[in-house]
């Protein structure tokens, strides 16, 4: 994972102004998708994957009933905290970037969850999951690369 300082110190990106539809007037603040924003959304996907792992672990080890069962279940609480952090990071990321570039990157969450689930829950690995991971990484890379050219 990139350090946020490193990302912030990189030059302001040259965005896809040339490809913009001429009739469309854009907010100059959010026309470019900064590397910092892309880095923040990447961080979101890692925290989002952690949230899913926590929530699943919590749900599988639910002891008490109702609200009490949720409030005394630390993995479940950790999962919700991760989701909260995630939302805040996403808002900060969206300030300096296009929604259409940043939002699809969130699909990388599937990749981390698919890689981590066999480790934490003993889920099976199969050819479909490997293919899925491959296509998502390829797709997200294409969207990211397109935003920088």
């Amino acid at each position, binding site marked *: 994972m990139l350090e946020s300082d490193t990302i912030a110190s990189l030059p302001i990106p040259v965005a896809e102004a040339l490809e*913009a539809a001429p009739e469309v007037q854009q907010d100059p603040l959010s026309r470019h998708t900064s590397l910092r924003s892309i880095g923040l959304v990447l961080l979101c996907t890692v925290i989002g994957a952690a949230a899913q792992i926590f929530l699943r672990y919590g749900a599988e080890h639910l002891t008490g009933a109702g609200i009490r069962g949720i409030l005394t279940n630390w993995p479940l609480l950790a999962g919700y905290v991760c989701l909260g952090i995630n939302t805040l990071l996403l808002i900060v990321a*969206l*300030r300096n970037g296009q929604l259409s570039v940043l939002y699809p990157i969130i*699909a990388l969450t599937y990749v981390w969850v*698919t890689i981590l689930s066999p480790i934490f829950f003993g889920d099976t690995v199969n050819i479909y999951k490997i293919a899925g991971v491959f296509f998502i990484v390829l797709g997200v890379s294409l969207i990211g690369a397109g935003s920088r050219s």
Partner: protein
Amino acid sequence: MITPLSSMLLVFGASIIGSLAAVLLKAGADLLHDPWQRWAPRLGGGIALFLASSVLYVMGLREGSLTVLYPMVSLGYVWTLVWSRLFFGEPFNRGKVAGLMLVLVGVFFIGLGNR
């Protein structure tokens, strides 16, 4: 496995609500330098819609085949691309459309793998 229509409708609805949540978060994020009265309702609305969509997803994914439902989950990315153009004037380009299609294929395979 037969996927109930109710599951499909829940997931379909969740994908639309989730994409609108992203639109509100973006709209709020763009106004963060303005007084809070301008961004707070948008960010608050976005967070509320995100919560609503995740509740609907959980309800929808409880029953039915992930091979059918996962691709419907990823429809949210398609709606978001459309809203980005419509509400924020962001351009479509080949990289975005092709990349998104690969993401949809990937999510479909992951659904297939999680059966």
